[in-house]
C-alpha cells in the first residue's frame, strides 16, 4: 500500500503496522494497567439464562445485592457483552445456544460458571441431557453452591475483576482482528 501525505511517501502495509503499534501500545505499562482496570469495571454479562440458578442471578442484580455497583449490568444483546455467565445446568440443547452466544461476543470475553451443575452436573450429574460447561467453554471462575447465594455471585465477580487486573485474562496479541 502506498499513500501520499503532504509530499511524503509512506511505503508498506500501513494498516498492519498501525495495528501492531496499537497492540504494542495497549500492552505497554501503564496503559495495560489502565486498560485492565477499565475492563474489570465494565463487565456486561449477557442476558442468557440456562437453568434455575437464574433466579438467584436475578436476585444478584436486584436492589438488595445490587451487582451494578461492581460495574456489572446484564445486557440484552450478546454483541455488546463481554461476560457469559452460565447460570446452572447446561443441557445439550442449550449448550449449542451457549456456544453461539459465546462466539458472537467480542473479545476480550470471560466466562463464569455458576452453580454446582455448571461444575460437574450437581444434583443432575447422572442426567442424560446435560453438558459440563468446562468441556466447551473456557471458564475463568466457578461458583459452587446449589444455588449459590447472591453473595457468592458477587464474590465471583470480584474474583474475576482481580484476575483481569492481574493481567491474566486479557491478551491482545492473541486476538484475531476482525476486519
Amino acid at each position, binding site marked *: 500500500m502506498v499513500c501520499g501525505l503532504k509530499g511524503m511517501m509512506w511505503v508498506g502495509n500501513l494498516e498492519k503496522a498501525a495495528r501492531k503499534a496499537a497492540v504494542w501500545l495497549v500492552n505497554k505499562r501503564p496503559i495495560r494497567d489502565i486498560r485492565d482496570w477499565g475492563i474489570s469495571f465494565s463487565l456486561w454479562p*449477557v*442476558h*442468557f*439464562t*440456562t*437453568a*434455575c*440458578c*437464574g*433466579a*438467584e442471578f*436475578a*436476585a444478584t*442484580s*436486584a*436492589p*438488595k445485592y445490587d451487582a451494578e455497583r461492581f460495574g456489572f449490568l*446484564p445486557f*440484552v444483546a*450478546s454483541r455488546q457483552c463481554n461476560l457469559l455467565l452460565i447460570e446452572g*445446568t447446561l*443441557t445439550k*440443547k*442449550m449448550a449449542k*445456544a451457549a456456544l*453461539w*452466544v459465546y462466539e458472537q461476543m467480542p473479545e476480550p470475553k470471560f466466562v463464569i460458571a455458576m452453580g454446582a451443575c455448571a461444575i460437574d452436573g450437581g*444434583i*443432575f450429574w*447422572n*442426567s*442424560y*441431557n*446435560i453438558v459440563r460447561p468446562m468441556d466447551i467453554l473456557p471458564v475463568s471462575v466457578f461458583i459452587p453452591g*446449589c*444455588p449459590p*447465594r447472591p453473595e457468592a455471585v458477587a464474590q465471583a465477580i470480584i474474583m474475576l475483576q482481580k484476575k483481569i487486573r492481574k493481567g491474566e485474562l486479557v491478551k491482545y496479541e492473541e486476538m484475531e482482528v476482525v476486519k
Partner: protein
Amino acid sequence: MSEFVETISRSEDGRFLELLIGPQHPASGHMRLVAEVDGDVVVSLRPNLGYVHRSVEKIAEVKKFLQIIPLVERPSLADTTANNLAYVLALERLLGVEPPPRAQYLRTLLAEINRIHSHFYGIGIHGVMIGSSTAFMWAFGDREPLIHLAQELTGARITYSYIIPGGVRRDMPPDFPDKVEKVLRYIERRLEDYDKLYVRNPVVRARLEGVGVLKKEDAIRLGITGPNLRASGVPYDVRKADPYCAYPDIDFNVITREEGDAMARFLVRVGEIRESMKIIRQVLKKMPDGPIFAEKYYKMLPPNLKKYYEETKEVKFPGIFANLRAPAGESVARVEGGRGEVVIYIVSKGGMNPYRFRIVTPSFRNAVLFEHLVRNVRVADIPAIYGSLDYFPPEADR
C-alpha cells in the same frame, strides 16, 4: 379437532416470515419461541421447549425417597415449597403417616410465604419483559424480606427442603411472629405503591388491557392452571377444592377476575398476595402447640437425636432413613403453588426408589397458552403476554 393444534403452515408466496425468538433474549427465558409473522402481526407461534430438560423423572427413579426432596425442588426454584409439599404429601399417603397439627400449620406458613415471593418474582419478570425496570427492581427488592423470613424459618434462601415425611425440619424461632408482622406491614405499604406504579399507570394499562385474552371455556378446555386460570373466571384453587395441610381451618377467598387478559392475570397475583398475607396472619394466630414431627418416626430416632430434637426443636434424620422403603402401591397428590397446581404421582414397587415418578408442573400445563394466546397479535405484545403467564422454563421442562 380443536383449531389450535394445526401445524404451522408455510405460505407458498413467502408472505410470512418465520421469526425465532430466543433462547437468548431480553426476557431471559430459557426457551425459544418460533413465531410466524406477517409484517408486524404474529400469525402463529409455537414454543420450543426442552432447553432446560434435565430429566428429573428419570433421575428420581434411581434416587432414594428422601433424596428426591431436593431434586423435585430444583425445577421451580422460585417456588420450591409447592413441589416439596406435593411430593411429601404423595409420599406420606404411600407411607401412611400423618404429620401433627403444628407441622401442618408450619407447612402452610412456609407455603404462603413462598407464594408471596414467587408472585413477586413473576411480577418482576413481567416488568422486565414489558420494559419497566422499575417494576423489576421493586418486586425483586420486596421479595428479599420474605426470603429473609423463610431463611429464618428454614435456614436456606430459596431451596428449603423444609417439609419432610412426617413433619417439618425445624420449629419456628420464638420471635418469628413479630418479624412476620413487620414484613407483612411493609408489604402492605408497598402494595399501595404498586397500585400507583402499575395498576393505575396508563402506559402499563395500555400494554396489558385487552391483550392475550383467555376465555373461560378455553381455559377449562386446555387445562390451564393457577392464577392464569382464575384470571379467566374459574374459581378453582386446590386449597379450596381439595384442602390439604391447615387450609380447611383457614378463612380466605379465591381471587378471580372475569376479563382473562394480561392485566387480569397480573391483578389476580396482586390479589393473591393480599390473601396470602391474610392466611399467614391467621396461621400464626391459630398455630397449635405440640410436636413438629410424627410420633411414628420420633420413636425410631436414636436417643442422642431425640435429645437434640428436644433441645433445639430441629429434626435430624438418622442414617437409616436414607433407606426409607415405601410399600408397594401408588399415590397422587396435588398442591396449589404460586404458579398453579403441581401434581405428583408416585408408583412404588416396595423398593427404596420409586418405580415411576411423575411430576406435572403448572408451567408445563400452561405452555400451551403461548400458541393459543399469541395469535393475531403484534410482535410487541409477545413479551406482554409471555410475562403475564409467569412461565418458568426449568419448571416446564423438568
